């Protein structure tokens, strides 16, 4: 934990993230570019036809959306237990990107659902719990903005984030626990053909790196804004 706190120091974070950012940005572009190339050169799926292309952006968006909530929950826990100020900043900075990937997951999923299921939307366990994830992100951001005192806002938002974390295993296991229209897991079980698995996994890595890159920039921005606020308070 001491190791984590040493790098979570704002000064060290600025130094370290400044060095890492160019590499994550380049790796993001390379991964997304490669995944797009592999995706658009892949043959049509025997069941889904060309709509399999939607899977290459839907599955990564949904997976990264859930992973970001995991990041949010861990940062919130660190904030509540150790009161580390950078944990609040990190959690708050992650939320808009989580909301974006959740919205993209829902939108691309519904566009895949229409030709494959015959409907854009059904209130099944997977889709409904995933929609709830979007509301959790929006609620988290709204709570931060609703409370003026930053310490109180951070505490309330962290509690909300931890309560909402119960939804993550529900989303993941919903296709096993309930009878859903949404198909079950097919990556770990090895039922996805390599020609489709490669663009999907590379795009997933690209989305994850995109989040890491943008998240670090948002945290750096928040640190600068805090410094500016402190300077303004010192001047006035």
């Amino acid at each position, binding site marked *: 934990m001491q190791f984590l706190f040493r790098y979570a120091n704002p000064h060290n974070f600025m130094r370290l993230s400044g060095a890492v950012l160019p590499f994550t940005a380049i790796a993001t572009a390379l991964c997304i570019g490669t995944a797009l190339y592999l995706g*658009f050169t892949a043959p049509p799926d025997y069941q889904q*036809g060309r709509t399999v*292309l939607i899977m290459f*952006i839907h599955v990564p968006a949904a997976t990264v959306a859930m992973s970001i909530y995991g990041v949010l929950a861990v940062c919130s826990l660190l904030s509540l237990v150790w009161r580390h100020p950078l944990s609040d900043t990190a959690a708050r900075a992650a939320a808009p990107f989580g909301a974006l990937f959740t919205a993209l997951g829902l939108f*691309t999923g519904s566009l895949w659902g229409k030709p494959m299921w015959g409907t854009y939307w059904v209130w099944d366990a997977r889709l409904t719990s995933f929609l709830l994830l979007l509301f959790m992100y929006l609620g988290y951001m709204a709570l931060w903005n609703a409370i003026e005192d930053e310490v109180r806002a951070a505490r309330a938002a962290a509690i909300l984030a931890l309560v909402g974390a119960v939804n993550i295993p529900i989303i993941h296991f919903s296709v096993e626990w309930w009878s859903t229209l949404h198909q079950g897991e097919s990556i770990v079980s090895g039922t996805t053909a390599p020609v489709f698995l490669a663009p999907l996994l590379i795009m997933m890595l690209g989305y994850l790196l*995109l989040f890491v890159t943008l998240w670090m920039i948002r945290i750096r*921005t928040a640190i600068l804004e805090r*410094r500016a606020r402190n300077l303004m308070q010192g001047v006035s």
Partner: protein
Amino acid sequence: MNFDMGAYGIYIWPAYGASALGIAVAVVWTVAGWRRAKAKLAALEKK
């Protein structure tokens, strides 16, 4: 690369378009925020 989507184009292209737009907006918003904060801090430090 094969860009012929046949009858599924009306589902595939909006999915890719929305994803590209969402990502582009996120990148522009993030970088603009960083530049704004950097400029503001620099101006304050000059005073």
